[in-house]
């Protein structure tokens, strides 16, 4: 229903988005995962007809979305990355205003406002100015304002950034409910892979303006299906140990993580014995070893050599 074709945006010198092709089917929940500066917000701005692309296009139901922007705008709800609200006004006033902007009036407007306030759990604080809200509450109303006109497509740019786990779960549950029960199509942007893993049917991984991988969670993880991740905890970090590890023939990648190292290696190789051997040689005391199934985080690491939150 919504797709991009070679979408590209060049700011003076930086190519923020490069030949991006993504699509959303009705009722799907799709994640756009990438580190800071990957070009997620820029992509979303172009999809939501805010920013004209340098080249490429956005198509909505087969039509050029920029030429017929009104059709898309009516059924789309965009949650910006920042809190885009009139902070000196109350939640209620903000909602009434944005509801009217989408053509709601009178009784209908009032019921929608009450329903959404209920949904985001802010009914008892509705009369307070937004600037008196906590971070989590601001995030919730930032989303709520977007739901008033019952959008068919919900585009969210890191809607949970910088809030506590409790508020985050509340928001994630809410989005999941909207997607599953109201059949709302969701495009969800984040750099938290757990969120995307939990919420989305399909995921695009973006880095340096390009889509570097895409597919369902399982498909993506199967990129690593021939590999496994060994987590080694050590008493004191030892560069020598790390060195010998990475020089080992069947080790793909070694990264330092916390009080230890993360080793990616092909499955089936009996590496563990050798790991202990190497530790002994370099006089490193191993305090624990764990073998994990890969996460999206590992996929990203595998693809780029960097962690998502670098």
């Amino acid at each position, binding site marked *: 229903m919504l797709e991009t074709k070679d979408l590209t945006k060049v700011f003076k010198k930086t190519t923020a988005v490069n030949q991006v092709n993504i699509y959303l089917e009705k009722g799907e929940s799709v994640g756009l995962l990438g580190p800071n500066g990957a070009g997620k917000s820029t992509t979303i701005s172009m999809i939501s007809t*805010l920013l004209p692309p340098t080249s490429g296009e956005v198509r909505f139901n087969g039509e050029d979305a920029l030429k017929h922007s009104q059709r898309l705008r009516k059924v789309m709800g965009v949650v*910006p990355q920042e809190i885009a*609200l009139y902070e000196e*006004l109350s939640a209620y006033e903000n909602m009434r205003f944005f509801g*009217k*902007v989408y053509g709601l009036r009178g009784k209908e407007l009032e019921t929608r406002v009450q329903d959404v306030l209920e949904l985001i759990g802010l009914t008892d604080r509705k009369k307070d100015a937004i600037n008196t809200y906590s971070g989590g509450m601001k995030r919730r109303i930032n989303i709520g304002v977007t739901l008033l006109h019952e959008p068919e497509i919900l585009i969210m740019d890191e809607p949970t950034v910088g809030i506590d786990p409790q508020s985050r779960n509340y928001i994630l549950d809410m989005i999941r409910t909207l997607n599953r029960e109201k059949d709302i199509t969701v495009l969800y942007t984040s750099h938290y892979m757990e969120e995307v893993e939990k919420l989305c049917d399909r995921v695009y991984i973006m880095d340096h303006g390009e889509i570097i991988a895409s597919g369902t969670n399982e498909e993506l993880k199967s990129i690593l299906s021939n590999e496994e991740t060994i987590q080694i905890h050590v008493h004191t970090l030892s560069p020598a140990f790390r060195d010998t590890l990475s020089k080992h023939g069947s080790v793909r990648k070694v990264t330092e993580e916390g009080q230890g190292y993360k080793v990616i290696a092909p499955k089936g190789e009996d590496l563990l014995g050798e790991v202990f051997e190497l530790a002994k040689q370099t006089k490193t005391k191993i305090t624990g070893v764990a073998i994990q199934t890969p996460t999206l985080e590992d996929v990203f690491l595998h693809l780029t050599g960097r962690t998502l939150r670098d």
Partner: protein
Amino acid sequence: MWTVFKLQWLRLFKQPVLMVTFLGLTLLFVYFLAGAQGTQTISVPTYSEELTSEELNEWIDRLNEEETFLFVESDYETVYDNIRMNETAFALGLTQENYEFLIGREDMEISTLIQYVDQIFVTEMRLQGVETDFGLTGLEVTEFIEIETRSHAAAVSSGDRYRLGIVVGMSLYFSVFSILFLMINLVEEKQTGTWNRLIFSPLTKTKIYLGQLTHYLLAGMIQIGLAFLILRVLVGIDLGTNYLEMGVIIFSFVFAIVSLGMLLMGIVNTPQQLQVVIPIVTTSMAMLGGAFWPLEVVTNRLLLFLGDLMPIKYGMEAMVDTIVHDHTLSQLIVPLSALILMGILFMGVGINLMERVSDN
């Protein structure tokens, strides 16, 4: 469009501090610079070397019958010294059948003073002539024909014009401040993202701009209107009764200023920078445009030319002409079209710059 318009009012009512402050400043400044002076009469030291003190007092009483000036008894030596020390600007000297002025320096009031004294003298001399010719005493003048003077021009002293210039100039100066500061809202909206929320909503860009701009336009007009109303009712400054003309001038002026605001925001696009730029622009415009002192005192060609480019100059000119000379709209066509043209030009360039910035 009206949704956006109404929202801006709601926001303004929630945070009216800015507007109220500038209104207060207008009143304060006008009151001290012009209002207070307006009620204070100018005193004229009066002396005579020929008349007795009684005769002199009689004259002084006669001269003080109208309250334009306050004539105070003095003597030649004091007056002469004061004028030399530049403590008095002028003094009136009386002789048996004539009068003279001692003038130390040019002053706005002198021509009015001369006119006034001359008029009284002529009347009195006539009366005295009749009295001595016919041997009568205690004659009074009855006016046979009441002539209503419609040409205010002659009756208004340059001092009045100057004072009115300050009243109008100050009111406009502060209103420019508050309109431009209020308009920072628009840039803030672009920063906080509420502007974007509106852009990707079904509202068209034109409607969003129109909603915003009509709000600033109306807020500015109300600000000036309110300032004038208060000045008139509470301070008692005569601002004439040409409401239609004043309304049209206020509208054109505020339109030019709102457009100027758009131009500034096209060039400078963060609220922080605007907070620096606005006072500079506003104040230099007021100086060049003659809101702080009459342009007559400026001789530098370049400054005068720059003054010609300032909307505030045309706003003031048009208002003073309407108040003092009862100029009608057709007589105001030059300043009004200057304002409207500037408005259209600034607005066009401003919106273009703004859109280019957000597109890059």
